[in-house]
Structures are given as structure tokens and as C-alpha cells.
């Protein structure tokens, strides 16, 4: 009964979303408020129905309803309670449900927040949101029916993919999808601005918080994905330039560009066309990513379920692009720049260059990802470009971006005088160059590593210089220190939130640089009692033991890691044998540290437990990537603190 209820609810929701989208559009066109109001009711109903579907699906998982194909494919009687819940979005069909549900939540928030403060744009925003929602509901009904029955009903299900039985899988997709769906809101506002011809700056100020929130969740999703890859997949890395990763990284790059270029528009009324194009591109890339990973056109280690869903996404992507580009062409005359770039040495130029580099990186990632398709179409041979390509081309771009991270926030608008440059950058540049020399003397050989670390120091000093100067100014007015600093951060929370986010990115950059430059590994076979040495660590193999877990067998190795100083740590890398899987799954064990992680992967082993092959890695500075994520979170939170000062100004600004 429950599956039929769910499937029925989806059909009704689809109908209502289509109706609501049309009603809102007609309401917006004719100015009939009743129609827009009716669309609002439709949005509320869609939200209720999709929520009901999600709950029904969760209930089907909790109650082991194997008559539902999706449940039977992704759970079995041994799946623990919490993984039965996360299995709801463990595979394709369920993840679309989650996506649609988040979209319906966002639609509702748009109704609540912008019903009154964006009157002209609002009907069209609602129409676009419901239109996109309708597409996802269509996907849920036709190519990926989540409530499809399975006949005959099996007595047990197949079980969740063991790799997904991890806490990272609870949070990673949720964060990623919140990011993806979040960009629908600025996109909807951009389309509304184009349709109504109000292509001024109001859509940008209204969606600032949406953009930051979406960007934040996308960043978080990427970082958690890296963490999952690092501690589950057992290859010892966090990023492999796999098509699936690239698919999520491209909208992050364009989203980051958008986040910065809107500041130029807010301040200088420039880049109108560019900003509209960027947000359209970002939204299109979220769809493209789903198409890429779900259609099977690109081979990926992730190998998701494939099917006709790719065609649906490609068609929708085509519709979105044709409509959006058509609207851009239609409003071309209104999109001319009002401001002009005055000087190459100015904040506008720094931001523009930041955008150019981010778009260049997006293009590079796109090109590298679809390269096998291109080469097969053009030359008839299948050629791929792997990690070396992405690293080689992107490293200079990212170094440039880090440099601009230091320049952009401090350099003067319009035209920077020599005095301005000296005042802001003399110290940072001097300290940066000094740091480069010190890193060289300390024996850092890689030029890229020296450059990356020195640039990081440069940016950190620019932030410090700014903070010290502004705090001093407040101290002069008689405020005491903690109050002066706190007041400063809160009063200019956008600026200092942004600085903190930059700091987070810098910390991530340090982690990436360190792990790329200095990580070492070895693989060896040890008899019981034997040991191997790497980077000052001595790892001894103490034996193997088997155990039976709720849904799998586990062979656990015991290794003692000594570093010559303290008492040894005992690590337990294992191999898990799931009955539904043909091959075992490695379960890595590690000791995390600020300086380095000791990371052990159990390879092959003798059945009598007398010897085991083990891969030992000493991964340097990786923890800083996760610490950077925490700083980034704090920075985003600071930048989203409601502003008392600016609210008046934003409404007074001419559209």
C-alpha cells in the first residue's frame, strides 16, 4: 500500500508543480495576484507531498519493505538502523527524492522570505523554482521510479553498498545537494530579472545570502567527499580528478566566480551580463554534472546506476540553456555596462582576473573530463588525460588565485596609487619573500610547494595587516581591545567573514600542498613479528583475527606503530567480506596528526594468518584540509550574521 501512496503522491505533486509554475508565470505576466497566490498554495502542497514521499520511503526502509525494488536493492535484514535511514539516498532514485525535497524546501523559503520584498520578480522566481521542481518530479515518476514494486517479493534484500556504510555518506550527499539545489534560487532570480527586464542590481542584493549558503554547502560537500574518499576508499588520497568529483567541482568554481563578481556589480554597476551568465552557467553545470555521472558517457570509478535518466537531464539542460541564452539575447541592450574599468591596478581588475582564472580552471576541468569523448569524436582514438593533466594545468591557476586572494580585498577601487600599494602590500610582500627564502633554507625542494606556501604567508599577512590597522583605529576611539575587535568583526561582518573564508581556503591549500609534496608510502609483506620502517615509524605485524559482524565477516590485522618516542599505537586495518559482494572491501586504519597521518591498508594475507601484505603511508599535513573546512564554516557563519547597517542602504539603491 505504501509504495502506491508514494507513487500517487508524486504524480499529484508533479501535476501541482506544473500547474503552479504556469500559474505563477501567467500571474506575473498579467499582474493577477490571485494566480500567484494559487501558485503559492501549489508550492506548499508540493512540499507537503514530497515530504510525505520522503517519509514513506524512510518508513519502507525501516520496516524492510522488500516489495519496493529500491528498498530491496539497497538494504537487507542485517543493515543497521541508521544506515537504513541513509540508504534512503544511497542510490540514484532516492538521491533524486532528496534533491527534489530540498528544492521544495527552498521553494517554500523563497515564498516566505521574498513574497513581499521582491514583488516584481517574485512570480517569475516562483515559476522557475516550481518548473525545476517539476522536472525532478518527472524524473522521479518516469526514468527513476523510486516506489516501483518488485515481484516476487524477496525474503531479504541485497544490502547497501558497503562503501556507503559510513558516517561520511550521511552528510556528504546532503551537503552537496543543498549546494546544488541552493544555486537554483539565484538562477531563478536571474531568469526573473531577465523576463521582467529589471536586470539591475536588486536580484543580486536579494540573493546574496542564498549564493553564500549554496556556495558554503557545496564547499562542505566537496570537503566531506574528500574525507570519505580518504578514510573509506583506502587509496590514501582525497581527490583524484575523477569525473564525478569534477562534476561537483565545476559549479563550485563558477559559483566562487559569481560570489566575487557580484561585489563588483553591487559597488560599480559593472558586469551585469557577466553575472547573469555566471549564475546560469553554475546552474547548468549542476545539471550537467548529474548528466555526466548518471548517463555512463564517461567512465568513472564510481560507476553509478545508468539508464535513460541521462537523456532526461541532457534534454532539460538543453531547454534551460536555450531559454536562458534566448532571454540574454532578448535583453542584450539593457545589459550594457554602466561603469568602466579605469585602471589595470585596481580592485575591479583584481576581481575580474579572479573571475578569468576561475573560468579558465572550470574550462580546464571541463575539457579534461570530456576529453575522451572529444578525442574519440575527432580522431577516433580513445584518449584520456589523468591526474597529471589536471594538476599541471590547474596548479598555476590556483597559485594565481591565492595571490589575488591577498590583493583583491586590500587594493583600492578604480585606480590604486603607489601610496596605496606601498601602504597595503609592502609588509605582506616582504614577509612572503622572506618566507620563501626560509622554506628553501629548510630544505623544501619543490618550487610549487615553496611558491604555494610563500603565497599563503603573503595572503595571511595581508589579512593580519588589515585587521591590525582597523582594530587600532577603533582602539584610538577609546574602545578596549576585545570589544574593539569584536565590534569590528560584527560591524563589517561581510568583510571579515570573507577574510575568514579565505583563511580557511588557505589552510586547505597548505594541506593539499603538504600532502602532495611530502607524503611517502611503502608496500611490503610481513610475517608475524616482522616490521617495516618508513619516515621514522616502525610498523610491526602482530597477527590476524576473524570476526563475524551483523552483516559481514571481518578479518582484522593488528599492527603496532612505534615512532621511537612514545608508546606504540596499535592500528587495526581490516578486510570486510560482504556476502552480497564478490570481493572484499578494505577497511583502513590510521592515526591522524597535525603534522602527519599514519595510514595503513591491509592487502593480501595468508589464510593461516602467518603473513600479511600491508601498505603503509605517511601522509603529511592532510588534517589541515579538514581544519580548513572548519574555519571556512566559521567564516561563512560570520558573513551571514544579519547586518543592521546595510539593510536600509540596499533598499534605497536604484534598481
Amino acid at each position, binding site marked *: 500500500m505504501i509504495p502506491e501512496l508514494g507513487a500517487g503522491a508524486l504524480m499529484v505533486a508533479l501535476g501541482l508543480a506544473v500547474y503552479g509554475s504556469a500559474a505563477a508565470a501567467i500571474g506575473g505576466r498579467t499582474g493577477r495576484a490571485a494566480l500567484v497566490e494559487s501558485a503559492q498554495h501549489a508550492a506548499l502542497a508540493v512540499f507537503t507531498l514530497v515530504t510525505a514521499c520522503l517519509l514513506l520511503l524512510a518508513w519502507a526502509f525501516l520496516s524492510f519493505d522488500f516489495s519496493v525494488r529500491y528498498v530491496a536493492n539497497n538494504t537487507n535484514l542485517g543493515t543497521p538502523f541508521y544506515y537504513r535511514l541513509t540508504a534512503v539516498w544511497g542510490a540514484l532514485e532516492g538521491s533524486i527524492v532528496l534533491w527534489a525535497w530540498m528544492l521544495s524546501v527552498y521553494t517554500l523559503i523563497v515564498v516566505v522570505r521574498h513574497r513581499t520584498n521582491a514583488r516584481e520578480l517574485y512570480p517569475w522566481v516562483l515559476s522557475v523554482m516550481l518548473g525545476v521542481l517539476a522536472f525532478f518530479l518527472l524524473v522521479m515518476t518516469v526514468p527513476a521510479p523510486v516506489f516501483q514494486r518488485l515481484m516476487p517479493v524477496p525474503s531479504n534484500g541485497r544490502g547497501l553498498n558497503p562503501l556507503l556504510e559510513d558516517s561520511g555518506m550521511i552528510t556528504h550527499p546532503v551537503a552537496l545537494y543543498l549546494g546544488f539545489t541552493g544555486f537554483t534560487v539565484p538562477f531563478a532570480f536571474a531568469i526573473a530579472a531577465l523576463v521582467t527586464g529589471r536586470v539591475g542590481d536588486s536580484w543580486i542584493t536579494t540573493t546574496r545570502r542564498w549564493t553564500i549558503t549554496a556556495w558554503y554547502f557545496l564547499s562542505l560537500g566537496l570537503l566531506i567527499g574528500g574525507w570519505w574518499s580518504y578514510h573509506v576508499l583506502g587509496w590514501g588520497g582525497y581527490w583524484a580528478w575523477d569525473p564525478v568529483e569534477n562534476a561537483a567541482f565545476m559549479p563550485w568554481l563558477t559559483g566562487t566566480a559569481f560570489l566575487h563578481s557580484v561585489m563588483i556589480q553591487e559597488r560599480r554597476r559593472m558586469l551585469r551580463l557577466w553575472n547573469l551568465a555566471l549564475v546560469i552557467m553554475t546552474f547548468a553545470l549542476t545539471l550537467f554534472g548529474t548528466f555526466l555521472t548518471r548517463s555512463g558517457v564517461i567512465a568513472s570509478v564510481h*560507476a553509478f546506476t545508468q539508464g535513460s535518466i541521462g537523456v532526461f537531464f541532457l534534454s532539460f539542460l538543453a531547454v534551460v540553456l536555450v531559454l536562458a541564452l534566448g532571454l540574454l539575447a532578448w535583453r542584450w541592450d539593457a545589459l550594457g555596462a554602466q561603469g568602466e574599468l579605469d585602471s589595470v591596478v585596481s580592485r575591479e581588475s583584481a576581481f575580474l582576473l579572479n573571475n578569468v582564472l576561475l573560468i579558465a580552471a572550470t574550462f580546464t576541468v571541463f*575539457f579534461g573530463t570530456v576529453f575522451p569523448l572529444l578525442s574519440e569524436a575527432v580522431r577516433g582514438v580513445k584518449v584520456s588525460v589523468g591526474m597529471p593533466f589536471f594538476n*599541471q594545468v590547474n596548479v598555476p591557476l590556483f597559485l594565481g588565485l591565492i595571490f589575488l586572494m591577498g590583493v583583491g580585498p586590500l587594493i583600492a577601487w578604480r585606480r590604486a596609487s603607489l601610496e596605496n600599494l606601498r601602504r597595503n602590500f609592502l609588509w605582506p610582500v616582504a614577509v612572503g619573500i622572506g618566507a620563501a627564502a626560509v622554506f628553501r633554507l629548510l630544505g623544501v625542494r619543490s618550487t610549487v610547494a615553496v611558491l604555494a606556501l610563500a603565497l599563503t604567508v603573503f595572503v595571511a599577512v595581508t589579512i593580519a595587516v588589515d585587521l591590525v590597522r582597523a582594530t587600532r583605529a577603533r582602539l584610538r576611539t577609546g574602545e578596549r581591545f576585545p570589544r574593539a575587535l569584536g565590534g569590528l568583526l560584527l560591524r563589517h561582518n561581510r568583510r571579515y567573514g570573507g577574510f575568514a573564508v579565505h583563511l580557511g581556503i588557505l589552510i586547505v591549500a597548505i594541506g593539499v600542498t603538504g600532502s602532495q609534496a611530502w607524503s611517502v608510502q611503502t608496500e611490503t609483506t610481513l610475517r608475524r613479528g616482522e616490521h617495516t620502517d618508513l619516515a621514522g615509524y616502525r610498523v610491526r605485524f602482530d597477527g590476524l583475527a576473524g570476526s563475524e559482524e551483523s552483516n559481514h565477516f571481518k578479518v582484522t590485522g593488528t599492527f603496532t606503530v612505534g615512532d621511537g618516542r612514545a608508546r606504540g599505537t596499535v592500528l587495526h586495518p581490516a578486510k570486510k567480506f560482504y556476502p552480497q559482494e*564478490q570481493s572484499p572491501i578494505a577497511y583502513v586504519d590510521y592515526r591522524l596528526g597535525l603534522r602527519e597521518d599514519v595510514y595503513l591498508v591491509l592487502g*593480501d594475507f595468508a589464510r593461516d594468518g602467518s603473513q600479511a601484505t600491508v601498505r603503509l603511508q605517511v601522509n603529511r599535513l592532510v588534517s589541515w584540509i579538514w581544519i580548513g573546512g572548519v574555519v571556512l564554516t566559521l567564516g561563512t557563519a560570520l558573513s551571514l550574521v544579519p547586518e543592521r547597517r546595510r539593510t536600509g542602504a540596499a533598499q534605497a539603491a536604484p534598481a
Partner: protein
Amino acid sequence: MKPKFLVGGGVIAAALAYMIYAGVTQSAVYFVTPSELGSAPVAGKAYRLGGMVERGSVHWEPRTLALTFALSDGKASVPVRHKGAPPDLFGEGRGAVVEGSWSPEGYFRATHIMAKHSEEYKAPHDTSQAGVKEMMRTLSGDSR
């Protein structure tokens, strides 16, 4: 738009084009099947070779970490050598993709064996399960 910005944009575009061109030529990896590789192997060129691991061809020497096997596409078979333990998803009669280069001594030197994760499930294998249970017995007997 002032000319100097156009020139700057042009310089950036040219630099990017060059970096991409250099990146592609240096890191291009050619997808081949065993019969394609067998007919015209070029030593030193980077290949990604995909095929089926031939039954009875796998030899794994834990002490020296030497792993040898043959990849086949039904028509041709290529001997492969790798240093390192076989990855989890590796097995006889199953598909595998290896990355590496052709050695003039007449074998494929794999630097990387790619594991393919799948969302799809096979029906539980009674035979493999029995094997695991057997292994569990040996291991637990051993630890006591």
C-alpha cells in the same frame, strides 16, 4: 573596453591554450584492448589497457610483491606485470583496467590497477561465501 584589457585577455587565453596543449601531450593515456595493443605496441607510450583477467594466469608472490597475470579480450592476450598486492576487486575471470606502458622485453608494466566500484549488486555467491566461512574458521582457530 580598453585595448590593454583585450591584450591582457589575449595573453591569458594564449597561456591557457598552451598549458592545456602541453598538459594533453604530456599526460595523454591511450585506451586500448589487448588485440589493439598486441598488434602495434609502442614502448614507453602511456596506455590504459582493459580486458578480462585470464583464468589460471594470476600469479602472486607476496614476499616480492610480484603480481603477474594475462589480460585478454578473447582474441589476443597480453602478459601484465605489477608490483603490489592485487586490489580488492581484482580476480580471475573478471574485468580489469590497468595503466602503464609496454616494456620492450615483451610484457605490459602496470603502474596502477584500477578498481571499479559498483552500485549494482550480484546475487550472493554461495561458493565464495563458503570459501570465506572456511577462511574464518582457519583464522579463528589460529587465534585461539
